[in-house]
């Protein structure tokens, strides 16, 4: 299933949830935030939120900032 993660195309297994994707992308999951198709996906809904073909997902993490 083709989706877009952080600006690049990605191929993920059918039935993957946002939680699966986050785990695949980052070890440290505290302080991580996820947006799917322009909406926030609250941490509590990661597992219950399946990914769909063509999803635009952003997986974000803290950095130093002004």
């Amino acid at each position, binding site marked *: 299933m083709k989706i877009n993660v*952080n600006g690049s195309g990605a191929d993920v297994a059918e039935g993957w949830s946002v939680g699966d994707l986050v785990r695949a992308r*980052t070890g440290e999951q505290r302080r*991580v935030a996820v947006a799917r198709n*322009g909406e*926030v996906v609250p941490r509590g809904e990661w597992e219950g939120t399946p990914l769909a073909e063509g999803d635009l997902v*952003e997986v974000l993490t*803290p*950095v*130093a*900032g002004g």
Partner: protein
Amino acid sequence: MDQLIIAGEKFESRLLLGTGGVPSLEVLEKAIAGSGTQIVTVALRRVEASTSGPLIEVLERCNVRLLPNTAGCMTAREAVLTAKLAREAFETSWVKLEVIGDEQTLLPDPVELLDAAEQLVADGFTVLPYTNDDPITARRLADVGCAAVMPLGSPIGSGLGIRNPHNIALIRESVTVPVVLDAGIGTASDAALAMELGCDAVLLATAVTRARDPELMSAAMRDAVSAGRLAYRAGRIPRRWHARASTQLAGLPEL
């Protein structure tokens, strides 16, 4: 005690520190300690781009309040969504709201900024907007419910200091919420001047993080903010065109 109060929360330090530009986390930790700050800004970026390692561990060790920013956003929509993501990531409803109108000057866009501020206040955020030094825009931001206003002294990272002290003083007159001088500070006297103009606090990053010796400069800024605040409270002498003797003339001998 002379405390800074934002949204009902009390702080001993009137210096807010941005973390952007630090050469290393070791230096950041020393700078936070040296500055005595209790509020530190952070940002969100894609996981691949994160280079700062265990930033969060360091900040948690420093026991400071995190203030996520919306740096890089150019529309109200982007900024509002970024603020909501930050609320998720950092578990705080406080946000340093930045909506930039131009990538060269990084100056805020007043229209988008006001729009985003209004939406975020309605959504329960504690909004600290980075704004230009226009007193009208600052008053409007206060009117829509921002917890403070954060006017710039000059463009972000420019080190040009406070280009228009008159406007900062007018902003101080025109709002009742805390005024935090944000952006443009180049050195200690700039920070002291901000406080003398009546600002309640100063937010700076580059001036410390990109100084030749960030740790030393963090202490300079701590003292500068304290000096400016004390001077503001102490009440400076008036300016005089001519001199006024500081030693009495009475009793001057004829030699």
